Every structure is written in C-alpha cells, then in structure tokens.
C-alpha cells in the first residue's frame, strides 16, 4: 500500500473536505454531507442537472459540477452508489421549478437508489426524469444494451445535457438531448494494472505483468479478454475494432473523441494512443470535431485507458461546443 490517506474508511469524507476548500469558487456543500452543488444552483429558469455515483473516479462525479455542466452531485462510498437520500437531496438542491434531469450510469445500486429518490421527489412535487448511460460497448452484446455499464461517455452526456439546460431547454428537451448523446456514444476500456480500494487494502482483482484486459470495467469488472500486453498502436486498433462497428460509425461521420486514463497511467501514454486513434479514424474518413485526452474518468489507481467516441449531429455539435467551467472540464 502506497496510498496517501488517513483512515481508509473515511477517504471519501476527507477528499470531499479538501475538494470543497479548493473549489469554493465553483462548488458549495449542502446540508447533506454527501451532496455537493454548483454555487449558483438552483439556477433560475433552468432545468437542474443531477448526477451521482460511487467515489474513486475523480474528476467524476463532483469535478463536473459547474457552469453549463452539472448542478448537483450525490456522492457514494468508493465504488458504491450514493444513498437514495443523497440523490433526493441533490435533486431538491437544484430544482428551480423547471424539473431535474438525473443523468447517471447503469449500475444496479444507482438504479435502485435513484428509483427511491424519484419516489421521494415525486411526493414533493418535483418533476424528475432520468437518462441512464450505457456506453460501455464491451460490457454486453448490442442486443442487450440495457445491461451495458455507463463509463467515460457520461462526461459527454453531462456536457450535452448541461449545455441544453443552460440554453433554457425544457426538461423533455434536456432529457432528449442527453439520451441522444449517450445513444450515439460508445466506449471501451483496457486495464494494465489493477486498483486497490483503500478499505480493502489489496487489489481485488489481478492483471498479470505483461498482460492487459480488454473491455475492463471502471471498477475492475472483468473484460472480454485477457491478452499479452500490446503496443499502444495495437491497443488503439483493438479498441476501435470494438467501438466502430457497434454503433456503427461510418465514413463522413463527425465525432468527439474522449481518451481517458484510468488513474495511474501517465498522460504521455494517453497521447501516444490518441495519435493512433486519430490516424485510424482519419484513414476511415471519420472526422474528429473535438478531442479530450487526459484523466477524465478514473478508477482509483488503476492503470489503463478508456476510449469513447460520440457521433455528432448538428444539435450535439452545437451543445458540445458550448463553453463549460468545471474542475474536470473547462472549455473556453
């Protein structure tokens, strides 16, 4: 263990304290210690954007609170859904009367807790609708899309939903744009070294030296295959081989590329992979409208990367280009 922590059972609490202190120009705490909100939320006349999920994915989820992004976030334990109460309090904290879009990832715990939170919100007369991200193409076959995990594509969903809300969109319009964003988004991950939940104290899965796991989940959920480690170029090709046919992406499509490290992989390596991704896409006449490379959605100290592609239409393009100000995504 070379973790830099205090009590392993209170890493989330300690981290939140530091985060709030460092970003008090952007975020604010609420009465619920597991809910953070944008300091201007509820923003009058705007649909509220809520998300939430387990901790350990920095800058997700709280790092995406901000202008034209998320208004409130429910914070869970490491790799564990927030409570129903946290989702409910997050919803309440940013409802300006126009309703709240809860945009989260497809995990059993989150599904149940959001369901309970929605019941509570309904009792309060708050209008809540959800979009459940399921962009991880490696996590189930295409005909079982409802089983797929939500991964780094959630960042693009928040970007799009947040922008649509800031444009003054109605709840239905925000939901439709966010749903369209995730429906046009595919991701896949490769793990090269496991991560350690601080309270467990040892990696809860193994990736042998000189091997890699294709299709690994954001919590170390097993992927589609374990292979001898490949070159960065081969990894790029393998990931695109999973993503491209799945939507499918075709020549002439304009896309956003998001390449994220899983936490302990140097950004240098991420650019090496991006270089090949760009090469393959331009070879296939797929046009990169915008790219994000860096640690956008991580898994504690896991090594590896995820690759996400979103296919754009005019609306998505407009929304993805709108400026944003959050810790994890600042766009001028």
């Amino acid at each position, binding site marked *: 263990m070379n973790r830099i922590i205090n009590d392993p059972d209170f890493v989330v609490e300690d981290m939140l304290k530091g985060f709030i202190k460092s970003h008090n120009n952007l975020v604010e705490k609420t009465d619920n210690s597991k809910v953070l909100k944008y300091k201007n939320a509820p923003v009058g006349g705007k649909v509220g954007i809520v998300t939430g999920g387990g901790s350990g994915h920095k800058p997700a989820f709280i790092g995406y609170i901000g202008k034209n992004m998320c208004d409130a976030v429910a914070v869970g334990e490491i790799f564990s*859904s927030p409570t129903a109460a946290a989702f409910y309090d997050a919803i309440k904290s940013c409802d300006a009367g126009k309703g709240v879009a809860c945009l989260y990832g497809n995990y059993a715990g989150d599904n149940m807790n959001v369901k309970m939170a929605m019941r509570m919100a309904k009792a309060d007369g708050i209008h809540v609708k959800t979009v459940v991200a399921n962009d991880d193409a490696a996590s189930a076959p295409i005909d079982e899309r409802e089983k*797929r995990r939500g991964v780094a594509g959630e960042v693009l969903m928040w970007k799009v939903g947040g922008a649509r809300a800031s444009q003054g969109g109605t709840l239905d319009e925000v939901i439709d744009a966010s749903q369209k964003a995730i429906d046009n988004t595919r991701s896949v991950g490769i793990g090269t070294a496991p991560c350690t*939940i601080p309270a467990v104290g040892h990696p809860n899965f193994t990736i042998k030296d000189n091997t890699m796991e294709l299709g690994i989940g954001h919590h170390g959920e097993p992927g589609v295959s374990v292979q001898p480690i490949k070159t960065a170029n081969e990894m790029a090709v393998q990931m695109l081989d999973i993503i491209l046919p799945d939507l499918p992406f075709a020549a002439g499509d304009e896309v956003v590329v998001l390449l994220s490290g899983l936490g302990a992989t140097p950004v240098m390596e991420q650019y090496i992979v991006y270089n090949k991704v760009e090469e393959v896409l331009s070879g296939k006449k797929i046009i990169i409208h915008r790219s994000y490379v860096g640690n956008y959605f991580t898994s504690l100290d896991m090594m590896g990367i995820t690759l996400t592609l979103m296919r754009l239409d005019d609306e998505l393009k407009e929304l993805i280009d709108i400026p944003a100000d959050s810790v994890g995504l600042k766009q001028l």
Partner: protein
Amino acid sequence: MTFKNKDALCIVKDLIKTIQDNKNYLSDIDGKIGDGDHGINMNKGFTLCEKRLEGKEYSMSEGFGLLGQALLNDIGGSMGPLYGLFFDELARTSQKSEDIDANVFEKMFRSALEAVQEIGNAKKGDKTLLDTLIPSMEAYSSALSSGKDFSACLEDMKIAAEDGMQSTKDMAARIGRASRLGERSRGVLDAGATSCYLIINSIACSIQNLLKNLCN
C-alpha cells in the same frame, strides 16, 4: 412458542457480529466476479448501527428499524436499498407485536422479501441474494403450514438458505455487476446470496436460542 419483542434485541446484535466477522470473506467473494466491496459495504452499515444501539435499550423491531435506516440513509450502494428495505420491513411488520410467534415471523419475512423483489427486480436464478431469500421463505412457509413448530420452521429455513446460497455457484449471473460476465460468472458463489445466508442463519439461530431462553 413465542419470544418477547422488547427482549429480543440480541437478534440484531448477533447479526451485526456475524457480518463484522465475515467482512473480508464477503469482499473476497465479491472480488471474484464483482468489485470486491460487499463485505466493506455491509460492515460499514452494520457497524454504524451497532454504534447507534450502544448503551440504549431497544426492542427487536426498533433494532431492525435502526439497521434498515443505517443501510438506506448512510450506506447506499446496492445493499442500501436491498437490505435497507428488508430490515425496514422486518421492523414495520413486527413493531406492533409484543410477542413474536411463528405467524408474525412469516408475515415479517414475506413483506421483507416482497420489498426486495420490488426494488431490485431480480428473479430466482439471476444469481443474487434472492436465490437465498426465496427458497428460505418457501421452506419456512411450507414447514409452517405442515404444522411444524417455530424452531423447526427456522431449522428448515436455515437448511434452505444454505442450499439456496450454494445453488448460486452454478448459476450465470443475470443481474448486477456480475451479469456482464455471463457464462464466466459460473463456478463462484454470489456475494449477496452468501451474506443473505449469513443473515438468515444468524437470525434463525438467535431466535431458536431465544425460544430456549438462551439468548445472550
């Protein structure tokens, strides 16, 4: 055969101890096809409840209620809603009963099971804690209707719980994190089914002791 609700907090206390003792075991099982945190999640919730019980006198129903609330409001994850509602229902359906007999217990257990099914949408065979819970309920009910006494009903329940847990070993998960593994999830116990067996077994043993006035 009955026991006094107000004297039966030991059921909850024994249960807390059981989960604490099995923290690492449950995480290890979850690590094989899930994300390795099941024991941590459970231990955190149950230990929180332990602190809240400390130094105060509560009935069994109140104890279950506090446990349910700790899971629901402070733990989250999948266990918050699933076990949170489970214990909440055990509390709600027993709180008006001074004496708990085999029939009250059947009612308690049935509504707890229904709450779990309603929130989680899982069915038997999905490789979840329901594969422990449903057979346990069935075994208890059929023992009861065949005229067995409370303790004997609990005995049947314990056996069914263990069989139920074991049955998950050969299943391919169809729900939750492990479901993405499909066929590759076979060969390992389900973490929730295992904790559920531990819970049922602990509750049943504690009641059996109570019925023999042996609760500590």
